[in-house]
């Protein structure tokens, strides 16, 4: 299964396909396009990726976290392309018999995905557009 999609993310469907009858807890993280970033207005975002490598990187991260939290079932979907304010860019679903593991796994997953997965975003606003992270180098 692919971790990347060009379509709107169906978070409820993802939860439904992830939950097992032995799970008592489900923690969902959704990253959503905000209307501003560092004080600058944002109207939309274009997400770009090095797709085959991004798939491998996410798979590696999911594998690591699954090894560390073997009770946790994990689903991750990152959307690419043009997104508007309010659109979900990433959904991470963690389900487990008890809640502590799902909270921890969820937090680690998003932190690591943001660190190393080759995905980029170009923010568009009334003042033009820019690739996030490049200007500050």
């Amino acid at each position, binding site marked *: 299964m692919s971790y990347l999609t060009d379509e709107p993310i169906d978070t409820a469907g993802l939860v439904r396909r992830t939950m097992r009858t032995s799970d008592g807890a489900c923690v969902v993280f959704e990253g959503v396009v905000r209307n501003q970033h560092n004080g600058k207005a944002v109207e939309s975002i274009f997400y*770009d990726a*090095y797709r085959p*490598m991004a798939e*491998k990187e996410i798979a590696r991260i999911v594998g690591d976290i699954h090894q560390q939290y073997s009770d946790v079932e994990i689903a991750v979907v990152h959307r690419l392309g043009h997104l508007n304010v309010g659109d979900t860019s990433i959904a991470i679903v963690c389900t487990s018999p008890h809640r502590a593991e799902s909270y921890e796994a969820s937090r680690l997953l998003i932190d690591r995905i943001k660190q*190393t*997965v*080759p995905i980029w*975003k170009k923010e568009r606003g009334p003042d033009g557009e820019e690739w996030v992270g490049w200007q500050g180098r």
Partner: protein
Amino acid sequence: MNVRLLYFAVLRDITGKSESTMSLREGTRAADVWHSLREQYAQLADYRQPPMIAVNESYAAPDTVLREGDEVAFIPPVAGG
């Protein structure tokens, strides 16, 4: 030998292409490719430190020696999530 270069995000905008093939001498390192891009594109001239580098879809050190047919991509600061 030849390697295939992939350009993403800001680097695609700056170079105006999404991929190219580059002929290299044996023993060329990944960071050397970055420096030849800096010579070609004025907007990259100030970036002495290469960004993260991927060789064949995995992160690699800047001093990695490239081989015939390698797929090389420079990874600007990522911003997924």
